[in-house]
């Protein structure tokens, strides 16, 4: 009977095989996790379409407002309660981006200054898009 159905991982070195498989799985899972889009890890992302383009990534809300330099001038971004984010000022003429106010679930954009702010910290992956 023993010869027909050998016991699994019964030998002395089988634990090494099992540990090796777990290690491979762990490495694959970690690699997969960090390969996901930033939004799934609760980060905030600011993209600036200067030449060359810049991408700033924040792992969470910042205590102080940050200033970035866009295509035509500086812009200031600040975080509020619960990971909300807004563009406080920008060197654009119409201030549409400033008028967008606080958000925690949709992108802010300053077209003239070439800046996109993705407040992904509090974004829900259950929502595919926001109409506004």
């Amino acid at each position, binding site marked *: 009977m023993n010869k027909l159905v050998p016991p699994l991982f019964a030998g002395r070195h089988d634990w090494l095989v099992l540990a090796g*498989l777990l290690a491979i799985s762990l490495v694959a*899972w970690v690699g997969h996790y960090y390969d996901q889009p930033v939004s799934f890890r609760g980060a905030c992302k600011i993209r600036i379409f200067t030449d060359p383009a810049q991408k700033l990534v924040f792992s969470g809300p910042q205590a102080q407002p940050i200033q970035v330099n866009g295509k035509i001038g500086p812009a200031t971004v600040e975080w509020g309660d619960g990971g909300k984010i807004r563009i406080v000022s920008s060197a654009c*003429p*119409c201030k549409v981006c400033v008028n967008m106010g606080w958000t925690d679930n949709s992108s802010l*954009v300053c*077209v003239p200054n070439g800046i996109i702010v993705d407040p992904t910290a509090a974004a829900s992956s259950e929502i*595919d898009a926001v*109409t506004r």
Partner: protein
Amino acid sequence: MADIRTRIFLAIVVLFIVFVSLTREQAQQPFVESRILMDTLITIRAYSDKAAKAVDLGFAAFAEVEKLASFHLPDSELARLNQRGDLAVESSLTPLLKLSADYYALSEGYFDPSFACLQKAYGFYSGVGRLPEQVELNELLQNFCGLDKILRQNGDGFVLASGSLLDLGGIAGGYAIGKAAQALKEAGCTAFLIDDAGDIWFEGQKPDNTPWRIAVLDPRDKTNLALIESRSPLAISTSGDYERFITVAGVRYGHIMNPHSGRPVDYYSSVTLIASEPIAADALSTAVFAMPPEIAFKWVEERNLPVLFLTATGTIHLSSAGRHYFSQVKTE
């Protein structure tokens, strides 16, 4: 010997399961990309192994429409029409001009791209707001507004009345979404969502078989005003006055105009309209936003349109057809 072979087999099976499950999970994640085009932020989410190429083609479609219909690009077809006052009939802008005329007629003049001269008078293009006198507005309305009066088609093309301006911003986004969706499908992508600054089109089945879920933003506190869930293709568009406005003497004025008075309308904070085509949602949400509530509520009922109104006083009104599409509507 059989013992070793069994163990090797089991090890391969375990590794196979690990990699297959990871690969499967990865295939369920959408490919998401955003770009600034047509003076706004466009985002495309696509589920396909050919998503990257398909999304590229989708953005190319937006860029094409921008070259045609941008009000601000000096060498766009629309800018040439505004500058020279005429456009050859074989221009690629012709279909969009004809569609604009159709929606102008359908909306009884409430969707009117010729309001650009009013918006210019108020300073929307310069960023320096001003309040024109009623005499000035009356002259603009009488001589330079009304798409049926100021844009004529003859054998050679279109002729725009001298001094008039067209801004296709209320329809070009929907038109571009339609073109981008076509490009995505032709590239083999069957499930995708296109978000043109809140004007949305989605179609196809997501890999996890869940419905598409779209939140309607409450402009007052930036929470959710309502939710739209659907597995069928839908076009959703919201018109509001809370992002594009001028401020004069501390008072905010939105960019959508009343076709009779020439003044910015202030009936609603937002109007969200659902349609079966992106261009219809885009143009009609703008038109309905310009209508006073006593006209708008009746107008959308007669056409069985699903619409969610948030009035300027904070009242929420849902059309009869809207009850089938909007859920979790905020209580006032």
